[in-house]
């Protein structure tokens, strides 16, 4: 089942351009109604953000009016100003970015060699490790995060950015090695042999030959691990308090408070949304490759 997903990846990522000419001729162009339905779907997907962007840029009394006021008001960025001035949002944003960057770097440093080894050592050991990774990918997160809370308190590293980043490295490691392993599996093993006959050591070969070849695969894995860390709410909720709180946790605490705080939560959400939307567009090709090649979603 996993292989079926792999096989089709290349066609999907390279798209129509590299497909054989024969196949391109056979592909029917989309009829108009399909285009209209998809355009409508895109609007529906975007609707929550459009509405949130409007609500956040309204003056507080207009934002909470029912029926909604759609025009005739003076747009304002007051919620953003308040967010910046009255909360520690900047700190939370720095924490969130730090967690995402640290965990991405660590996850790749330990994930790349592991994935390479798994792709080149076909044995029961590899199969067992991959199965364990699949199971860990599927675990309810509380089953590992609640003990982590207890352990991190005992060790005195509770509520530190590093502890949260490390927890996320471990939680995402199963996804990282599955994804990278599938990318490595597409590189012919003859290539490593050739480099090693030319005098490279295994590690030297990995660094000089594999990593440059794996550029897109590593970039894909990196984008995913970064996004997962950026998105994480549950783990951050349990493992942080005030010192290393992240933006999603902050947004959740603002809900159910006063109306201006709600608008600030919206402003924080918009600030978190815009870069992620940019990532979605710029890295679209890699996200698609990762989703279909990773076989296990994180």
């Amino acid at each position: 089942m996993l292989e079926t997903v792999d096989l089709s990846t290349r066609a999907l990522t390279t798209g129509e351009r590299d497909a054989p000419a024969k196949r391109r001729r056979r592909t029917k162009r989309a009829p108009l109604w399909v285009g209209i339905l998809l355009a409508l779907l895109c609007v529906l997907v975007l609707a929550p953000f459009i509405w949130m962007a409007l609500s956040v840029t309204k003056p507080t009394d207009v934002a909470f009016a029912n029926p909604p006021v759609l025009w005739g008001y003076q747009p304002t960025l007051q919620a953003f100003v308040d967010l910046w001035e009255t909360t520690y949002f900047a700190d939370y944003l720095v924490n969130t970015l730090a967690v995402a960057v640290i965990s991405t770097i660590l996850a790749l440093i330990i994930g790349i060699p592991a994935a390479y080894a798994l792709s080149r050592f076909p044995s029961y050991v590899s199969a067992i490790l991959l199965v364990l990774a699949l199971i860990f990918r599927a675990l309810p997160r509380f089953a590992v995060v609640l003990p982590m809370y207890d352990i991190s308190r005992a060790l005195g590293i509770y509520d530190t950015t590093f502890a949260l980043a490390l927890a996320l490295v471990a939680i995402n490691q199963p996804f990282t090695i599955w994804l990278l392993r599938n990318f490595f599996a597409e590189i012919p093993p003859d290539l490593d042999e050739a480099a090693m006959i030319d005098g490279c050591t295994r590690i030297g070969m990995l660094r000089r030959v594999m990593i440059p070849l794996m550029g897109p695969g590593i970039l894909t894995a990196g984008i995913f691990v970064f996004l997962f860390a950026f998105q994480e709410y549950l783990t951050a909720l349990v493992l942080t308090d005030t010192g290393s709180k992240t933006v999603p946790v902050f947004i959740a605490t603002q809900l159910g408070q006063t109306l201006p705080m709600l608008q600030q939560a919206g402003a924080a959400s918009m600030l978190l949304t815009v870069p992620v939307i940019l990532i979605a567009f710029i890295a679209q090709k890699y996200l698609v490759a990762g989703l279909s090649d990773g076989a296990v979603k994180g």
Partner: protein
Amino acid sequence: MKPREFWLLIGPSVLVMGGLLVLPLIRTIQWSLQNVHYGTPGTFVGLSNFTAALTDPRFGRAVLFTVIITVISVAILLVLGYLVATGVNMLTVSRPVVLGILLISYVLPQLVGAVAFSWLFDDNFGGVVNHVIAFFGGPKVLWFTDPVPNAILIIANTVWQMLPFAMLIILAGLQGVPAELREAARIDGASAIQTHWNIIIPTIRGVLGFVTLITIMDVLRIFDSLIPLSPQAQAIGNESIMLYVYSVAFANGAQQLGLGSAVNVLTILLILVMLTPFIRGIFKEAKVAR
């Protein structure tokens, strides 16, 4: 590759997963058999946490609610994911833009997406959806306090958030269907629906199975999005299994770690059962590769 090299390369990853996933998991299993509070050693109580969980009507309701949400969401995700993937598969020039937009709800933090989603339904924010319903002559819907509309809201959000994933995997499957198969069906005079039903769907059966499994597992773990979507979850009975664990074992100084851990263990057992065919597949692959 020599075994020594293999272990050298994989060592750090095994250490991290062993220390930060396996050890905590063992602790959870141990806790599930104990009466325990954070930071103190527990006392062994056998299986009483499991009986407590299984006889707690609140847990029963959480399971029922989670299963209903999962079944309906996954069914919608499969059908809608297939239809949208088929549509996107016909696109040529506009494909990157459409994929980029459709990916947005997947890459956002679930919590943030759910906050934005909830505002469309929230009467405090103008209640756009209620006004649309009223425009078509419908009644005023209490999306956050009425159990059934709240469940619909949660399902809608889940579908919105996971559709990109389902659609992309199915799209990958569709790309793998040989053009000759479609051609042959067309020459034999099959209609579009017949071609989909008899040719394409059976061909990508594996991919559909994979999407089903992953989406089931992910909806079973639903937690983040319920915070904004169902603030009254416990009162109206729309609690998910993970929200139940959170509230008995962690929230507001709750210390029933044993009970929470027992529920986690039960969930793990369920997931293991669902994963069995995949695990068998991986071992079969390993045997072939040797």
